């Protein structure tokens, strides 16, 4: 049983969400809701009601970045102060806490930001190769629904999409 992809383009979000709702209620065999991807020019958080919540792991990275990087940063600053020979400065101890806390704070932001971005790339799987079923209109004003399903049910899905007046249907022929 081989699987293939199909992309249907709709002129607006309401049409697309109707199509997805239809798809959801028609219970095809060998087809999971996870295989439906919405491609849109802007963000549509309301799609989560239909497709279910998709896991976002970015915050975990942020948490660990914001927790451990400042700790390591403090250790880094303090240990390098301790190795920089014995350099007493104008009435301050070799490891003074207020400046180190200032630097720790900067490390906190640094860790938070960097790990968030790293988490974003990992979690959103960027950079990725665009698959062939991508239409530039998706970045303009149209909504695409990309589904992955078994070849056997592909015509039925195509019929379903056709009922919702798509602008174009790509793929799903083989």
């Amino acid at each position, binding site marked *: 049983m081989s699987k293939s992809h199909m992309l249907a383009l709709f002129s607006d979000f309401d049409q697309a969400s109707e199509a997805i709702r239809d798809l959801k209620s028609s219970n095809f065999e060998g087809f999971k809701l996870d295989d439906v991807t919405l491609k849109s020019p802007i963000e549509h958080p309301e799609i989560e009601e239909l497709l279910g919540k998709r896991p976002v792991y970015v915050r975990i990275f942020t948490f660990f970045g914001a927790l451990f*990087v400042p700790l*390591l940063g403090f250790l880094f600053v303090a*240990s390098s102060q301790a*190795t920089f*020979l*014995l350099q007493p400065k104008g009435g301050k101890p070799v490891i003074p806490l207020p400046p180190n806390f200032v630097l720790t704070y900067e490390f906190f932001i640094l860790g938070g930001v960097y*790990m968030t971005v790293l988490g974003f790339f990992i979690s959103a799987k960027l950079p990725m190769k665009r698959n062939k079923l991508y239409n530039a209109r998706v970045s303009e004003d149209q909504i695409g629904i990309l589904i992955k399903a078994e070849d056997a049910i592909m015509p039925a899905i195509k019929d379903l999409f056709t009922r919702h007046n798509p602008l174009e249907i790509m793929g799903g022929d083989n």
Partner: protein
Amino acid sequence: MIHRLLATLCFAFLFGTAAGAEPFVQGGPIGSQTPDGYNALGPVVKQPIEFPHYRHARDMGINCMYCHTGARRGYVSVIPRIDKCIGCHQNIESVRNKPRIKKLFEYWDKKQPIPWKKVNDLPDYVRFNHERHIQRFYFRQNRPVREVCGYCHGDVANMTVDRRVKALSMGWCISCHQKDHKESDTNMKTSHGPGECWQCHK
């Protein structure tokens, strides 16, 4: 996969920097040399006379400070004057006809100093105090002279023309200054070298 690797690398870098905040120290085995004359040990210096250190220090067992007299009493260890060489060599007839000795006597006859070149040359803003090191490690701790001098100058007793063998970089100096050394062979008290800028930098 590549993402996971990236994340690991980031953590490893941060932790590595924090944990091992100790810089690297240059230096390597004695005698290795690259074709261009440079390697980790410093350049090969072409001297007017290829002075055979091995003959004097190893074969004859002459103390370094017999010629480098400044080492125990001042900042500079001193390269000996030509009369020091002649003082011995005019009485050693057996090597009188060797080419290097002939060269030496040519300088002597012309009344010219030998234009030795500096091998262990520090930047102008650094002053290495030979006296303190010799006094402490040679006179107080009674270590063998080849060990004391050789710590920085390498195994000169096995060289012909001297070559720089240690990095002589600031980090290399400090790596030793931060270790605890015994104050003398009888006293068990230890202390480490000074860490102030003005001890070496002028």
